């Protein structure tokens, strides 16, 4: 089922055109790998899709709804989960607190009541799903390894149950073994019906994807072909 549709998407940094008429549809239950040379606009595309920047032209439909008709903060805290290369976790908080905060923000934006106990339970649960036990969950993120931090980032992205996961070089700072572990998690997410879009330079990660999108030419190739 189509969860995300890009229609004639354009973006430029000043006079420099980075995205020019991107058209694509994304379905749930699949992993998409966006590849391309440096400067091709991969991260820019992700930023536009996640609502961090607005496209200069074109439309993004998320679950059939124009993104412009939604509040961008609600969009980011409901529909999209973003995972960054540098993790972008709040370093003064513990792993559990990072995940809790994300849930609290989502509930607050939705004007829902925040039940502290429920949120705590869910946070531990999600962290467990990504392979972090309780002891690791209660540690400050700076005391976790890179792989563990990336797991926390994934857990945070999943905390409010978004349909779409965007990951910008999620394994860029990790070793091979950890890379594999992270991709295993991504595969599980896709298997659970999420639409996972990964920007990557890694051939391994691109190889794990169901569809590979080369941004420059927008050529499509499927793994299963």
């Amino acid at each position: 089922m189509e969860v995300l549709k890009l229609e004639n998407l354009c973006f430029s940094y000043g006079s420099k055109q980075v995205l020019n008429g991107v058209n694509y549809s994304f379905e749930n239950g699949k992993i998409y790998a966006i590849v391309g040379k440096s400067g091709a606009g991969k991260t820019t595309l992700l930023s536009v899709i996640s609502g961090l920047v607005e496209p200069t032209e074109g439309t993004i439909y998320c679950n059939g709804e124009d993104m412009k008709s939604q509040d961008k903060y609600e969009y980011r805290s409901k529909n999209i989960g973003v995972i960054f290369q540098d993790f972008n976790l709040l370093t003064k908080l513990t792993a559990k607190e990072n995940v809790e905060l994300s849930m609290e923000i989502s509930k607050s934006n939705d004007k829902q009541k925040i039940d502290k106990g429920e949120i705590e339970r869910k946070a531990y649960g999600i962290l467990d799903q990504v392979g972090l036990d309780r002891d690791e969950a209660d540690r400050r993120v700076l005391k976790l390894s890179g792989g563990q931090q990336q797991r926390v980032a994934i857990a945070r992205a999943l905390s409010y149950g978004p349909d779409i996961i965007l990951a910008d070089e999620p394994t860029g700072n990790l070793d091979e073994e950890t890379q594999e572990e992270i991709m295993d998690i991504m595969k599980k997410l896709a298997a659970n019906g999420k639409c996972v879009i990964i920007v990557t330079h890694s051939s391994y990660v691109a190889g794990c994807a169901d569809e590979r999108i080369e941004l420059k030419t927008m050529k499509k190739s499927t793994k299963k072909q």
Partner: protein
Amino acid sequence: MFILKNAMRNIVRAKGRSILIGIIITIIALSVCIGLCIRQSAASSKESALSDMTITAQISMDRDKAMSKSSSSSGSISKSKLKSAMKNSSLSLTQLKKYAKASAVKSFYYTLSASVDASGSLEAYSTSSSSNSSSTSSSNSDSKAPSGMTTGDFTITGYSSDEAMTDFVDGTCKIKSGKMFDEGTSAMVCVISSDLAKYNDLSVGDYIKVANPNKSSETYKLKIVGIYKNSQSSTQANMGDPGQQTDPANEIYTSYNTLKKITDTSASKYSSSSTTAISGNLNGTYVVGTVANYKKFKTQVSDLGLSSKYTVSSTDIESYERSAEPLENLSKFAGYFLIVILLVGAIILVVMNIFSTRERKYEIGVLSAIGMKKSKIAKLFMSEIMIIALVAVVIGGTIGTVASVPVTNALLSSQITQSQTKSNDMQQSFGRDNNGAGPSQPSDNSSSSSSNSSGSSSSSASGNSDSNKGAVSNYISSVSNSVNIIVLLELLGSCILLAIIAGMVSVISIMR
């Protein structure tokens, strides 16, 4: 609520930054508390002192106005014009009583004072080795009689009622033997000071003879019915070479009717144009009670027809203002100090917050990226600084409250010392000993009082001259209980405002 929870967590997790901001706000709160306490002490001292006082008012010639009317366009004074303006300027008893009908007046009393010489065996009390029994000529600067009259050895004052005898009312003078003359009597009786009695070996029941200073053969006999002790006689002696007539020991008290009888008898012996007769200075005192009534009285007397060449004044208020001068100066200084501390504090907090916000750009970016609205991020940052400010205000306010009284008293003491030094230096320039004279005797009043002054003091004949009979102003030298709910609210308000100003820096950065 999750914003407050996260704000608390951020404060705890960033201890160094929080403590630093907290210390700065605590110092500001402490300084502001002390400044506000000083100002509050001054205001409440004034309020309580004036409310404890029974305010009296006097009507006198507005000498400044008379002089300005008598001056020519070049600025020089025309003596003839001035003399003409001053002539017949004293209000009569009838006129004084008319103004006593004002609704603001609670009671009214009057005194008549005159200058007489010693006669017979009576001698004026004197401690000077070169005392003169009488001083002559109108150039005598101590003379209180109108120009051209001779001053005598004694001042004899006639009182309309017991209320008028303020030195006895406030306990400065006390009858040691005998009794006070009856109120309203016209018998030839008087009370004299114990110093004078001892000096002349007089006792109750004896007679004294006084004479017209302009004509020694005109004498009057008065029976001593009482002898009083003036507790301030040694401190109220005039500066430098004391004149006998102004020495408190040489003050004779009698009833108004008695002295009026003497002055009328004297006047009947000479022609109306003559200045030989004993002349009396009539002073009226209106007891108005409160400052509000005093202000009302000022309006009412002009409605009752008081000419604009007269002015209404209050020696009580003037005396209080003198005693409160160091405290008022301190209050003004505290006001400027408050402004400076708040300004400097605001600048420091704003600068700190600018750096802190820059340092937390990453955190702001992450929060925004995971969906937190900018307004909520701004609320979060503002909440952090408000929580720190509240805690700091409580700590600073507590320390300030405890320290305010000793600090205020220490600063006040320094102010008084400064005033005293200034006064002493001035006296030394004139080669005078400043013992006991003038506003230089601080009293240790634990409840921010008060000044002593004699009630009837201004002369209607000689303008606004302050002819206090030995009045001494005591500086307010200590305060207590300077913190009240208003001070606490002002403290809280000013520190919260500072925190908001500092927080706005973060808010503006975030919203941009």
